[in-house]
């Protein structure tokens, strides 16, 4: 899921300087699981903003905030509340925030969260980054563990000299991706594969902004 972190409250307050009334929008997907866009998070934000004299015209948790059309339809019921607000404060990821920018052409839209990374929830509300969406998955060659993401140097061909008893020299909290890859490929009997040199990555596949359109199959047309 897309991991988001709540901005420091003071930063949000500074952002809302001159804004008297806000509409709060959360998201039931990732941001709810992260606790940054859940009904509880919205209630807390409402209380906090009202405490400093802002008017909260309404709150709503979108089903999937990054789904532009769906969210637009959902929000029709809240039209008056949105219209009454000087700004929309979006408590989701950056994609959800920009859905609102697209739907409400003339309304100020502000982000309450920082969007961090694509994460796996490995324990309750504990997220680990395993994939950095490089656009060219190579983990068939690396025992299913992504060195692009889980090695701070993104090394594709084995551990650097900083490998340290299974951990990384960059931080004792990081496991050495290549120690893990080796151990796993040894278990799965794929070490021979690890001898192949992986070529430089094609970073054109990571070039932003990206567009992806699923084409309809002929027979469906």
């Amino acid at each position, binding site marked *: 899921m897309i991991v988001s972190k709540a901005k420091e409250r003071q930063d949000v307050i500074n952002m809302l300087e001159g804004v008297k009334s806000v509409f709060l929008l959360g998201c039931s997907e990732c941001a709810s699981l992260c606790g940054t866009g859940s009904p509880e998070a919205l209630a807390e934000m409402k209380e906090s903003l009202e405490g400093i004299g802002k008017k909260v015209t309404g709150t709503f948790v979108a089903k999937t905030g990054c789904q532009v059309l769906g969210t637009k339809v959902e929000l029709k019921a809240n039209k008056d509340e949105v219209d009454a607000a000087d700004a929309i404060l979006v408590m989701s990821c950056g994609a959800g925030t920009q859905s609102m920018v697209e739907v409400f052409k003339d309304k100020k839209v502000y982000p309450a969260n920082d969007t961090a990374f694509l994460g796996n929830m490995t324990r309750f509300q504990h997220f680990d980054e395993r994939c950095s969406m490089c656009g060219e998955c190579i983990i068939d060659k690396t025992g299913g563990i992504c060195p692009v993401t889980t090695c701070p140097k993104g*090394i*594709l*061909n*084995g*551990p*650097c*000299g900083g490998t340290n008893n299974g951990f990384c020299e960059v931080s004792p909290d990081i496991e050495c991706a*290549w*120690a893990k890859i080796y151990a796993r490929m040894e278990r799965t009997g794929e070490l021979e594969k690890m001898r192949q040199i992986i070529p430089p990555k094609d970073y054109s596949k990571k070039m932003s902004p990206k567009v992806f359109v699923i084409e309809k199959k002929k027979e469906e047309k």
Partner: protein
Amino acid sequence: MSMKKLKEALEAGEFTITAECGPPKGTDIAEMLEHAKHLLGKINAINVTDNQSAVVRIGSLPVCRLLSEMGHDPIFQLTCRDRNRLAIQSDLMGAHILGIRNVLCMTGDHVSAGDHKTAKPVYDLESVQLLQTVAALNGGHDLAGNEMKGATNLYQGAVVTPEANPLEPQMLKFEKKVKAGANFFQTQAIYDMDNFRRFMDRARKHKVKVLAGILLLKNAGMANFLNKFVPGITVPQELIDRLKAAGKEGALECGMDIAAEQVRTIKEQGIADGAHVMAIGLENKVPEILKRAGIA
């Protein structure tokens, strides 16, 4: 005394000595040049580090050129941390036209280790791919396969950590580096000769030259620091005890003795093809270490 250059010495099967020069931060290079002068005629080649430890310093390439003018055979250390594949290739071609003939290919310490921790690390390539890049340029084509007007002629080396833990993934990478075109290796500092022999037994299966990394121990505190904070370096307790026993005054002398003994052992027993002596700021002590080792 005239010394053979790195490639010539290694190919002739001579016990080859390299040392290291770390460019300073700032433009006052008088001390660096003075140290380098001490090494003239005593070593076969001199490494010039590339923003070592991710700390900003003068670039390796211009310093290589200065040392070359002085009469040294410089080894251009090149990391992937600060340059993408365009910059890397243009620096490699630049090295060639400046008369530099050796390049040491490394991934490079992470920016988090250095003095600009908020910098964006590049790592467009890494050490194995960098070796392949040098091989491509030596063959007259760039990484994208475009033909070059004049190929490079660079003798390429790499690094390896014989004391890495776990060792097996490191050995696998060592083999990849050989396959990618490494002609020579300079190792991370080694202290335990038995461990190093075991490493060399495996390295000897490949047609590459290996220079053992000899890091001058300045005192027991430094040895303890290496053990505690530097992955891949293990100083045996016996050496730490010797440094301690030598006292404050005698520690450096004792460290020089230890380094000299290591070089002598490696040479006399033919364990490796040479030694890479790292004195970190005390390059002026290298000639004396070599003298005590029975070299020069």
